[in-house]
């Protein structure tokens, strides 16, 4: 058990990786996970370690990996996706929740300067969904669902968006929600003083002057360049709606339109929210939620086992710990399918990865099934170097098969000698195991990988996007447009491989201009094919997140960046 920081906190950065926040890498757990980190990026995170064998027994961990079979045959393309379905979660238990009770949640603190301002990179993530609502949220199949906006439409040129807002919604302080609040919220996100991670996503095609209120219930957004996927970007957890004029106070007041209202909040400390009986989505089952900040992962699990808390948030239990939890008489586990994707970015501007043949060889050289089995006991889904999860409606089922001989000949024709160093750290437990699994899997291709372990708490400042080859991870849950533009587009700040491909960028632009949803999907699939064939990122798998909760809790539901605060409760 690692009781110490080593990890900790998730430490922190503001984010944490342990969190599923997005963009922000997490911190070592020991400490504050997010603490300061970078602002935003989210790398994902959670610790799991994987331990040993077997399948974790009990209840809820339905961790079956529906891995799309690995290595198989030639490059097949099929328009995938069928029913996007259940990405989500298996709950510890479902069924009738009795009303009432206080749900106690342990969470890793973002940092000692965390805030309730949802736009901030230092926001206390777990409070956001309880206190606030967004214009739109994500549904279980990855699509866009109404929240404060009941409907939306876009002009034929994909430049002007109109949102019809929900009637009769009030903030926790009694003030009515109107389009002025929606305008203010978007402008607050774009304000450079807010330093919101989401500003970088939106600002390329949106500035404050384009955001206006047509009337009290209609929000108009005029973009600088076409974007047919704009609405999906508002599902982000930085986009929760705050009252007009509240920038200076929202960090402490937490006034939103969400299912719970704030009773108390202390940065990196304890806080309480109580049910909002007027919530437009229906009153929550529990009377209140008490949040406890616990920096150390093991301490969070201990709190669960000792029944001091009912749910451990943003914590991926390692395999051994999951077994301990399910063996206890009071706690159990639930699984969030494909919660994170792991990646080994190869710096596009560094030798030997400037050579397409080398990049292809590195992707072809490992056996995906072997790597996922070794790294996470198969608790996840093979990704075939495509970061778009199979549950995304735009997913492309395409892979280049594992082929050690071809990898060898590609390396030979590139004149590559066969030795390469990869960086990893204890920032997050899977990272180092993945490096080892990759190292062993590529031996048969003649690749000699040496592993360099760097300090966890400066990993994302000194190694990531600095060293030619390293290990990283992100949470899933971003809409496809954001995922591809934020992490793979030429010049994007989160483009961790510095990959630059103008044909790829053009396809993304075409998709944004395309009004026809089917054609747009085709563009996103074309983009995925380019990623698989020539990007500078090795993406071996999506990993499930195993969370711990009390056996008394029912209707736990979580996927992407969505957490169901309304229906979770205690069994009768």
């Amino acid at each position: 058990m690692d009781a110490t920081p080593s990890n900790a906190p998730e430490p922190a950065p503001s984010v944490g990786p342990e969190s599923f926040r997005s963009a922000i890498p997490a911190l070592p757990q020991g400490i504050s996970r997010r603490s300061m980190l970078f602002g935003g990026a989210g790398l994902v995170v959670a610790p799991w370690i994987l331990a040993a064998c077997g399948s974790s027994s009990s209840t809820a961990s339905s961790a079956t990996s529906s891995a799309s079979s690995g290595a198989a045959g030639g490059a097949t393309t099929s328009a995938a996706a069928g029913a996007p379905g259940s990405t989500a979660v298996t709950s510890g238990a479902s069924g009738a929740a009795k009303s009432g009770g206080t749900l106690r949640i342990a969470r890793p603190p973002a940092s000692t300067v965390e805030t309730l301002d949802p736009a901030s990179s230092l926001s206390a993530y777990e409070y956001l969904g309880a206190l606030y609502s967004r214009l739109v949220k994500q549904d279980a199949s990855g699509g866009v669902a109404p929240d404060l906006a009941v409907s939306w439409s876009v002009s034929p040129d994909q430049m002007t968006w109109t949102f019809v807002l929900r009637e009769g919604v009030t903030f926790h302080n009694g003030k009515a929600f109107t389009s002025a609040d929606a305008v203010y919220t978007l402008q607050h996100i774009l304000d450079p003083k807010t330093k919101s991670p989401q500003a970088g996503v939106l600002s390329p095609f949106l500035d404050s002057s384009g955001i206006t209120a047509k009337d009290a219930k209609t929000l108009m957004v005029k973009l600088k360049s076409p974007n047919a996927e704009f609405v999906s970007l508002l599902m982000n957890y930085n986009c929760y709606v705050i009252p007009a004029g509240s920038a200076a106070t929202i960090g402490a007041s937490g006034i939103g339109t969400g299912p719970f209202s704030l009773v108390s909040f202390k940065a990196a400390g304890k806080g309480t929210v109580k049910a909002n009986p007027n919530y437009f989505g229906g009153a929550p089952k529990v009377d209140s939620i008490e949040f406890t900040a616990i920096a150390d992962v093991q301490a969070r699990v201990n709190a669960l086992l000792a029944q001091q808390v009912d749910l451990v948030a943003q914590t991926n239990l390692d395999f051994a710990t999951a077994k301990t939890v399910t063996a206890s008489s009071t706690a159990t586990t639930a699984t969030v399918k494909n919660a994170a994707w792991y990646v080994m970015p190869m710096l596009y501007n560094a030798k030997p990865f400037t050579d397409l043949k080398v990049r292809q060889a590195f992707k072809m050289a490992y056996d995906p099934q072997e790597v996922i089995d070794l790294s996470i006991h198969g608790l996840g889904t093979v990704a075939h170097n495509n970061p778009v999860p199979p549950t995304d409606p735009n997913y492309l089922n395409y892979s280049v098969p594992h082929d050690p001989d071809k990898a060898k000949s590609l390396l030979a024709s590139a004149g590559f000698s066969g030795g390469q160093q990869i960086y990893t750290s204890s920032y997050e437990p899977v990272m180092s195991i993945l490096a080892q699994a990759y190292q062993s899997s590529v031996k048969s291709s003649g690749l000699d990988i040496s592993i360099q372990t760097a300090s966890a708490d400066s990993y994302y400042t000194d190694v990531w996007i600095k060293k030619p080859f390293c290990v990283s991870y992100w949470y899933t849950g971003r809409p496809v447009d954001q995922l591809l533009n934020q992490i793979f587009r030429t010049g994007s700040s989160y483009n961790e491989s510095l990959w630059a491909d103008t044909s790829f960028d053009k396809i993304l632009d075409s998709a944004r201009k395309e009004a026809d949803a089917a054609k747009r999907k085709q563009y996103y699939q074309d983009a995925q094919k380019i990623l698989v064939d020539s990007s500078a990122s090795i993406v071996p798998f999506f990993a499930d997140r195993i969370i711990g909760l009390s056996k008394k809790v029912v209707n736990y539901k979580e996927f992407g960046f969505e957490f169901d605060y309304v229906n979770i409760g205690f069994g009768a």
Partner: protein
Amino acid sequence: MLGKLMARRLALALLTIVLATVLVFVALQALPGNLATQILGKDAPPDAVAQLTAQLHLDRPGWLRYLTWLGGAVHGDFGTSLATQQRVVSLAGDYLRNTAVLAGITIVVGITLAVILGVVAGLTRDRLPDVLISGLSLIAMSVPEFTLATLLVLVCAVKLAWFPAVVTDGPDASLGTILHNVPLPAAALSIVMAAYIVRMMRTSVIDVMASEYVAMATLRGLPRRRVLLHHALPNALLPALNVIAINIAWLVGGVVVVEAVFNYPGIGTLMLTAVHNRDVPVLQYIAVIGALVYVVSNLLADLAATALNPRLRTPARAS
């Protein structure tokens, strides 16, 4: 004579504290990463980083920043936390109180336990009580404190539910809450700390009991209890005093790990966060406190030794 000795000790103590702060400062400069990038995020524009760097005076040379800090510190001004902008002294106040409670209870319980067990072991040399006590203390010395802490949690909090497993309150928890939560962390620290002192006490009791003056006192027919309490014990404690002092200083560092396991809002927790944030003023303050504890506990051990042994009061003859 004694005055001169004390003056020398105090000067050394001061030097120790200053050296500790220099070492901490230098070590922090050697760590990769800096506060401005930690706060602003990895994709912050370079001019924003430069601006914050200047605002935090991180662009000034290290020696100048250190001297500035030292200048403030001698006037009792320990500066402002770079991460939270709070005054360091008030920021650390609650954490210090919590660690003081934990350390105080640990010291009282640990030393009492250790002295009693050490004496029992020494008096029953090689018989059952000694074998048990010596064996257990060897085990306690060998087990890392976080393993011990985790075992205590599993047994006393999870299985038996006697005590809470972790502290769910922040640093400003009420004293009542802290006292309610202190038993397990105090037990973990007491056990590790006591183990070392038990070994020392046992050896020392065996030596003293074999000495001529104890034999003499016994031969003269003094009651065994009087021999023990008035003659043997004070002399047996002498060699153990420095071990006790070192263990008290160890507490300041040892709590870091134990506090993490129990989510205990003490100085160790604050230190972890501060290291992570590269929050130099907070760490410097903790370094001063740690060095102070070290110096004072050693000083007290020497004074206690002097009190216990009249010969030490007159240095000329003692040597």
